[in-house]
């Protein structure tokens, strides 16, 4: 049993060290990016061209193949940040702080993508680009949380206190987000916008569902690849003066 514990401890220790992560990620990146690209292309083409068109909305609903994956990725990145924040605060693993710094812009850009694609999708169905309904408002608040993390990080000079502050904000944000979502839903039932029928996904038929699942998986793979690259870039900025990084830069290119 304790052999297993040692293995976990070794793995945990290694996970925290930059050089190990840098070399592992350089091996992992090519495979992951090919896989992500493949899934993305299959999912999108299958969803946009080959899946049946919706009875009510015709082809407009195909935006779902980009809107829903983006929204779900945006949500789960934020909770990943919260977990990384927790890991940083409890175990002081500097890789977790770096993970937050690297992933926050990616999360923000996908939230923005979800927001704008939701608005574009809403225009033909609701008649206006934007409706202050529960989901869109809480996605906007999520975007603001991401921007707050990015802004907070850059306002600190030294990295350690920046990581500390950002992990606290990520954790607190993660606790608040469900509360905000509930309060916005509750507010939404009060201010039911009479003139606009709130768009509810009807039970989606299976031919449409499979491409959607492929697209969601593709988006998660893409985010994984982008995350790896962003963390490598962040490791580079932090370890620029260290010898192990200079050796890598000099001898491999």
């Amino acid at each position: 049993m304790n052999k297993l514990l040692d293995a976990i401890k070794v793995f945990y220790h290694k996970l925290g060290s930059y050089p190990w992560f840098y070399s592992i990620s350089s091996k992992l990146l090519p495979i992951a990016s090919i896989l992500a690209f493949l899934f993305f292309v299959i999912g999108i083409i299958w969803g946009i061209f080959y899946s049946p068109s919706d009875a009510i909305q015709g082809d407009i609903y195909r935006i779902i193949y980009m809107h829903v994956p983006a929204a779900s990725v945006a949500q789960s990145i934020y909770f990943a940040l919260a977990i990384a924040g927790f890991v940083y605060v409890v175990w002081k693993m500097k890789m977790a702080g770096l993970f937050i710094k690297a992933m926050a812009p990616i999360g923000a850009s996908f939230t923005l993508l979800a927001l704008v694609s939701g608005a574009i999708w809403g225009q033909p169905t609701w008649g206006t680009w934007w409706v202050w309904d529960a989901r869109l408002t809480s996605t906007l608040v999520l975007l603001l949380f991401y921007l707050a993390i990015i802004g907070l990080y850059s306002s600190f000079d030294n990295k350690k206190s920046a990581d500390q502050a950002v992990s606290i904000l990520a954790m607190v944000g993660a606790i608040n987000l469900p509360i905000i979502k509930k309060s916005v839903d509750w507010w939404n039932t009060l201010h039911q916008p009479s003139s606009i029928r709130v768009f509810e996904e009807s039970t989606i038929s299976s031919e449409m569902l499979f491409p959607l699942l492929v697209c969601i998986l593709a988006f998660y793979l893409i985010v994984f690849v982008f995350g790896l690259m962003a963390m490598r870039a962040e490791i580079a900025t932090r370890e620029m003066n260290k010898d192990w990084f200079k050796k890598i830069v000099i001898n491999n290119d």
Partner: protein
Amino acid sequence: MIELIINNHLHLTLVSILTVIVLLINLLMPLIKLNKIKKSLKNIETT
């Protein structure tokens, strides 16, 4: 072909262009940052 897209698939093309832009930005930012650092490190070594 363009009219076909404009009159009934405008929103779809708009969203897909937007998705491609977001993916490209997220792809290029780290690469540019990494290369800038590598370049600056290299010209320290050479001077």
